[in-house]
Each structure stands twice: as C-alpha cells, then as structure tokens.
C-alpha cells in the first residue's frame, strides 16, 4: 500500500488521460478550427449571464456607487486567474475541467480539493443562477399577465418564503433536457450572446434617460472595504471567463490567441458591466437596491415609468439564464462523471443510459441537490459560495503554475503566462484579497466543505482510486 503522501501526490500520466478519453481513436488531435473572434465570443458568452442580472442588488448596498471599482477589481483578478489557468490547461494534451488538469499536473489530493471547489463553481452557481431566474420570471409574468407567483413559493425561507418553486422548476427542466441528451451548440451560444449583450445594451441606453447625478454624490459611502466586499460577490459574475482556456486544443495559434481572447472577452465584459453598474447606480438611490428583485428590470421600470423595456429585459434574462443553467448543470454532471471513472466517487456517477448516451443517474442526482439548494438558500449566500469556490480553485491553479514551472520545467506547454512570475503572484494575491473580505459565514462553510471533501478522499477516494489500483498492480504483479 502506498503511503498517504504518495497517494496524495500521485499524478495521472497525461498520455493515459488522452487514451482513456479516446482522443487517439478519433483521429488524435482535434482540428484547430476556432478563430480568435469565435474564441472571444465564447468567452463573452460563457461569462455574461451568470451574474450581472442578479449581483447589483447584492453588491451595491455594500459599496455604493463605487461598485464600478468592485467590477474592475473583480475583473482584473478574473483575468489574471484565467491567464494562469490557460498555462495549466495547455500543459495537458486534452481539454477537460480544472479537476482533470490538477490531476495530471498536481496530483490526486489537489485534484480532490479542486473538485470540491468545482462543485461550488458549478453546482452552487447553478442554484444561484436559478434563483435569479425565478425573480426575472416573476417580473415577466407580472408585466405580461399581471400575475406573480406567491412570495411564499418564490423565495427562500430566509427571505420570508417557504421554497423557491420556479428555481426548482428551471433546474428540473434542464435536467430533462440533459437526460435526453441536449447540449448547447455553437449557434445557440452565438444567439445567446446576442440576447445577453442586447438586453444589457438596452438597459444602458434606456437607463441613461434616468441619469441623476445626485445619486452619485455619496460615491463611496463604505470606502475601500465596501468596494472589496462587493468585489467578492461580483466575482461571481466573471465565472466562465476560464472557459476560453479549455478550448486551447482547438484554437489556431493558441500562444497568441488564448491570452488575446481572454483579454478581449475580459475588456468587453468588464466595460459592459461597468456601464450597466454606472447607469444603475445613477438611476436610483442607494437605498432602493436593497432586496430589489429582478434588479435590472425593476430599475428600467422605475426610470421609464413604462413596462415594455422592463418586459423585454426580463424576457431576455429568462431566456439567457435558462441556457446558462443548462450549460452549468451539464458541466457539473460531466465533472462528476470524470471523477467516478477515476474512482474518486462511487461508480453510480458514471452509469450511462445506452439510448441517450447521457449519465442519467448523475444528472438526476445533481439536479436534486441543486434544486434543494436553490429552493431553500438565499441568493447572496449562494453567490458568495460560488465565488469562494471559484477563487480557491483559481488560487490553486495559480500556485500550480508556479509549482509546475519548478517541478517540470521542460513539460511542453502550448501557452506560457507572460511576465512570469509576476502574473501568477498577482493572481494569487488578488484571489486572497477578495476571499478575505467575504462574509465569515461563507469562509467557515467553505472550510467545512473542504474538510468534508478531504475526509471523503481519505476514506473513499484514495482507496478506490483507479490510478492507485493500477500503480499497485504494477508494483506487485
């Protein structure tokens, strides 16, 4: 039996990853077909929609109009982490989740921690996004039919409700589609990008008519602390930027295009966010943000006194958040699938339905857990948990980049971070900076969750590891 240290540090050979995913049987490398433009579009599409529709309500009361600096700060950190992530991803021949990258480059123990973070980045964020969706759905129903779902049935217990039914309905709908084998195509993604960017531009254009500089007088009521605290929640709205890195193997000239696409997507997204935030804080007084539902729609309605812009925005949000939820839950099921194949979690998660080629048990299990989270937890907590999970995952990735430069300097990398070691160090510092200002409860829950994951690894993962069994087989034939 290998020692615990050996177990934690054992790494999956990169060639094995390529073999077991069938990369070789299907003609080896994927064709490099993605251009810089498409890649940037992917980055924008993957990023917008996870947060901007819902974070203002949570973030503005913490920082005041200075929230625009929170957006810039969170965006900067997101950009730095995405660039570090790109190097780690490019060191592995096939593209997977950061769990797979960590397993190949940093070892089983780290991979398990990253997986725990990914459960927050995907599972919990799907819950957060679904809660946001329920707010916009209610707004849309209200404007179109003069009907809203009762407060009790559309809010979490902490917000005077019982259970958030629409959020659960959304997740179950996504589950049904995923069980049937649906997946978002490039075309759908392009349409979604148009819708998302379209409604944000609509918000900016219409919202500008309600510009009132008086609202900006007390620009930073809570100072730098407020800005940093808000950045913690706002980081949530930058999740997805890293999706660009996972496309590395299909991109023309990744060395040039990966960082460029990340930067283009980042600048586009940040500009949109900052404009949206600026228009929002100028349009209504600080006090109005607190507990406002379907924030962007509500602001438009207040500004214009007219329902249609709010309705259009709510409709756009309902459509695009639906697609985001679908993609996020999809990602979660496939990450669990990969983990189950590695023996890190029970084989239940890699059982497939032979007709639809989908991991039905995993999909159903994921949907049930996310439904419960979305049904009973408030959105700010879900958003913060997502942020901390993502931040820690990126923190590990950034450290991993530096570790790997020391331990495997000759490993071929499709892309290297510029200005090494400044970039990863800044990335690490940025992550820590944001994490430290999150609410104490978030940090405690996160530590608790990580402890659970490590215990799980200690009692289950390290014994059932497929890699471990293979290595043991080699050692004692």
């Amino acid at each position, binding site marked *: 039996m290998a020692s615990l240290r050996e177990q934690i540090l054992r790494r999956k050979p990169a060639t094995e990853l390529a073999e077991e995913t069938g990369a070789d049987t299907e003609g080896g490398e994927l064709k490099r077909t993605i251009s810089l433009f498409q890649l940037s579009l992917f980055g924008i599409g993957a990023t917008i929609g996870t947060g901007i529709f819902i974070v203002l309500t949570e973030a503005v009361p913490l920082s005041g109009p200075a929230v625009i600096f929170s957006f810039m700060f969170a965006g900067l950190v997101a950009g730095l982490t995405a660039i570090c992530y790109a190097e780690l991803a490019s060191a592995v021949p096939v593209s997977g989740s950061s769990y797979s990258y960590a397993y190949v480059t940093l070892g089983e123990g780290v991979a398990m921690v990253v997986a725990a973070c990914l459960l927050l980045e995907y599972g919990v964020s799907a819950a957060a996004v679904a809660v946001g969706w329920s707010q916009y759905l209610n707004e849309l129903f209200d404007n179109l039919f003069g009907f809203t779902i009762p407060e009790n049935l559309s809010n979490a217990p902490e917000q005077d409700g019982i259970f958030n039914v629409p959020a659960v309905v959304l997740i179950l709908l996504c589950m049904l589609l995923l069980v049937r084998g649906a997946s978002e195509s490039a075309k759908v993604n392009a349409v979604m990008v148009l819708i998302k960017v379209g409604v944000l531009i609509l918000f900016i254009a219409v919202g500008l008519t309600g510009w009132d500089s008086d609202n900006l007088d007390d620009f930073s009521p809570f100072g730098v602390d407020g800005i940093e605290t808000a950045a913690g929640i706002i980081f949530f709205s930058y999740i997805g930027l890293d999706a660009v890195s996972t496309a590395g193997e299909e991109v023309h000239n990744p060395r040039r295009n990966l960082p460029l696409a990340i930067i283009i997507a980042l600048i586009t997204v940040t500009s949109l966010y900052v404009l949206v935030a600026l228009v929002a804080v100028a349009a209504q007084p600080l006090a109005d943000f607190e507990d406002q539902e379907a924030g962007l729609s509500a602001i438009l309605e207040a500004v214009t006194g007219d329902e249609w812009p709010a309705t259009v925005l709510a409709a756009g949000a309902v459509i695009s958040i639906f697609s985001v939820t679908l993609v996020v839950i*999809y990602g979660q099921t*496939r990450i669990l699938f990969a983990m189950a194949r590695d023996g890190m979690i029970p084989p239940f998660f890699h059982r*497939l339905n032979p*007709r639809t080629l989908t991991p039905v048990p995993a999909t159903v299990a994921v949907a049930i857990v996310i439904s419960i989270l979305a049904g009973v937890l408030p959105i700010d907590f879900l958003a913060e948990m997502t942020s901390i999970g993502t931040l820690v995952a990126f923190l590990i990735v950034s450290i991993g980049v530096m570790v790997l430069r020391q331990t495997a300097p000759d490993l071929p990398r499709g892309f290297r971070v510029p200005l090494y070691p400044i970039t990863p160090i800044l990335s690490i510092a940025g992550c820590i900076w944001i994490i430290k200002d999150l609410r104490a409860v978030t940090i405690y829950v996160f530590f608790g969750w990580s402890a659970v994951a490590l215990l799980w690894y200690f009692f289950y993962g390290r014994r059932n590891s497929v890699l471990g069994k293979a290595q043991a087989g080699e050692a004692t034939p």
Partner: protein
Amino acid sequence: MTIVVGFAPDGRGRGVLHLSAMLARSAGDDLLVCAVVPAPWPPSPARVDAEYRAWLRGAANEALEQARARLPNDVPAQYVVREARSAPAGLLEVAEEHGAGLVVAGSSGGGVGHVSLGSTTSRLLHSSPIPVALSPRGFRGRPGARVVRVTAAFSEGAHDLVVAAAAVAGQVGASLRLASFAVRSRPPLTAGIGTAPERAVVQQWEQDILAAARATLEEVEHLPTPPAALTAVIGHGESWEEALEDVEWDAGDVLVVGSSSVGPIARVFLGSRSEKIVRHSPVPVVVVPRGAATEMAEQVVAGKE
C-alpha cells in the same frame, strides 16, 4: 416463402426490383410483384367510372410489364394487380393471402443514396405485421448480387432482433455485424470543461455497448446455422447521417432495424432512433416489427433444442 414487392403503377422505382431480386436470390424465395390500384368508390352498380378503372388497370398492367422486363430472369416471379383502398393496405392483403414473409417497397423522392420515407412507405411501416424491406433511392444491384452481410442496428433490448437477423444471415450464407451509433453533438465550450469529459462519456458508452454486443454474439454463435462471420462496430458522428456514414458499407450490405419497443407489439412502429437510422441508411433496410422478431427468435431457439 414469398416476397411481396410493391411496384408503383407509375413505373418508378427500379431500386425496388433490384433489391427484391437480390433478396429473393439470396433466400431462394419467389417474388410476387404487386401493383395496387384504387378500389371502386362508392360501391355502386352504376359503374360510371368503368372507363377510368379500365384505364387504371391498363396502366398497372403496363407497369407490371415494365417490371417483368427489368427483373432479372434468374428469379421466379409472379405479377398481380390488386384493387385496394390504399397501396399499403393492398400490399399487406396480398402478403397475408400468400403467407409472405417480407414486403419490399421503394423510396419516394428525396436524395439519391438514402432511404426516404414517403406517405406510402410510412404507412406500410406503421401497419405491417411482417418485416418491410426498403430500398434506398437509386439502389442498384449487380447481376447475380446477393446479400453478403447483414448489419443489425444494435442497442440494448435488441436481443430478439439480433437472433432473428443471425438466423436469416446464417440461412443465406451472409455474415452478421452488429452496429451501434453514437450520435453526440459537440460539447458546449461555454461549460468550461473542454471536450475530454464528453469523450469519456462516449468511451464509457462504447465499452458498455460492445460488452452487450459481444454477449449477444456469443449466443448467436451456437445457432444451428450461424452466420459466416460475427463482428460489432460503432459509428460516431455529430448527426445520425455522420454516424451511419462512419460505418463502412459495401455492396451486398443490408441493414436490419427493429421497431420501437414502445409501439403496439405486433406491428412495426418506428421509434425516433430507428426512424433516423432508416432515413440515413446508405444501404437497403429491413424493418422488423418487434412481434415478428420475437416470433422468429423463438422459432430459432425452439429449432435448436
């Protein structure tokens, strides 16, 4: 056993004749080429439409003459004109009267090289209690062509179909191949997990389906007259068309598809997957109703004991 051939009175559908000849030659069956014309309606003694009906019959007979001229003469064939309320109904009536084991029909318009289901063939598929063979548009068999390989579309629950197909393949001296199709669209890049997890999913599915296929093939090996060779293959693609093209096809190939397990038991009821396989098949397809497959499989097993 007799093979009923649906030949349209308009004389289209040379593919049907080529396919019928190939099947009859392989199985040593005789053909019954049938042209269906509308039955008189309303049933009145006045016979106001006598001339019209005479013309219809004449046209049908002319079509059958064409068929007679085109059908290779090494295959025994009879020719009938049938009056029925619809073409599928007429063909099935004839089949029942003659105790036929198979109905052959052609493709309607559409792309050359694929089976395309028109209103007649669709209805035939949905109401036939016996297997239906469909020729791709423009199908041509060389003189003396025989069935060389039977490919059964394999999925879980296709056990009876495989046994039935294996028995037929064994009788006609063809080999048997099980084909499964993995149709997966590209994973969404926006999920941020890349392509590896989805490939792992497909690979896991491949392992599962190949294990199931091998188990079924082992059973088939012990038939009284086993097929000449047994193989299993998987077609990959982002669409059904790609997945079917991914598998290698040759002259003498016939694809056997089972009807859905959810439809009425005795009849052919194409499931959405079966229908897609049929529509994108580059080779002739035989659609076997579940009831017929089970019956054949039971006979095979009973004969073995």
